[in-house]
């Protein structure tokens, strides 16, 4: 565990209310025209995916609009509105990530939980242009344990959000990024 920290912040629900101030270093490099193009493209990609997931992945749950809204949220508030409620900070959720990372393009993140009946695990990065980084669906029999590598645009907080028995729980950790990762 050396070099990792997963801390609990007493005021972390309040922290969730804080709007992600800057949109991140990434979009500063793109001019408005490019940005509009990109958004149009992302929307088109989303529509294509909706078709694909109906036909190919064949998920029985009609969750595509929900996920599209969630992943296109540009602020943490919007993302939480789609999730449905403010997560409760709980030590039963564990989030491990390096306290300092040199390269924001590759930041290892590990989320686990001791809660029963975990249905979903999310990782939210408020300082990224799109705060919702990843969502895992945890079927019965799969452990609430996930590790993945993420890009972090800048120094800031990372939230792990776990949905168990329909309720949301969270844990926050902070990491300092010396070189941003949105390239």
């Amino acid at each position, binding site marked *: 565990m050396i070099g990792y920290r997963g801390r609990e912040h007493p005021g972390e629900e309040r922290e969730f209310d804080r709007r992600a101030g800057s949109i991140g270093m990434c979009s500063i490099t793109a001019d408005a025209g490019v940005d509009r193009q990109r958004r149009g493209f992302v929307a088109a990609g989303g529509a294509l*995916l909706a078709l694909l*997931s109906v036909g190919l992945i064949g998920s029985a749950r009609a969750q595509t609009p929900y996920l599209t809204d969630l992943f296109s949220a540009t602020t943490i508030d919007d993302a939480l509105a789609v999730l449905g409620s403010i997560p409760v900070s709980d030590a039963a959720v564990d989030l491990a990530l390096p306290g300092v990372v040199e390269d924001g393009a590759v930041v290892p993140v590990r989320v686990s939980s001791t809660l029963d009946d975990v249905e979903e695990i999310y990782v939210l990065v408020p300082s*990224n242009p799109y705060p919702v*980084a*990843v969502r895992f669906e945890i079927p019965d029999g799969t452990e609430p344990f996930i590790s*993945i*590598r993420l*890009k972090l645009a800048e120094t800031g907080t990372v939230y792990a959000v776990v949905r168990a028995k329909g309720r949301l729980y969270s844990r926050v950790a902070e990491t300092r990024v010396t070189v941003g990762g949105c390239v």
Partner: protein
Amino acid sequence: MADPIRIRAKSNNGLTEVMVLMPHPMETGLGLDASGRGRRAHYISDVEVNLGDRTVLRARLSIAVSKDPLISFRFKGGQPGDRIDVTWTDNLGDRGAGSASIG
């Protein structure tokens, strides 16, 4: 087109640990290339891992996932020799698939 998916799955005391590496550029679409034009977003959006008929993990990724996504997780069950199948779909409609036996 894409490099093959690398999968490592190991069964240990009734628990199977899986590590999946999916080579993919995971381009955010936010930066500019050398000529100053916007790059097109290109990223894996959906991943599904199956043990036979049983789905053991489903993931939705975004542009915030690092290049060559690496995902580890664990599930109950799975015997040495059982087959793990991984499929991904990206935002441009490309798909990738790979499989491995549990060791």
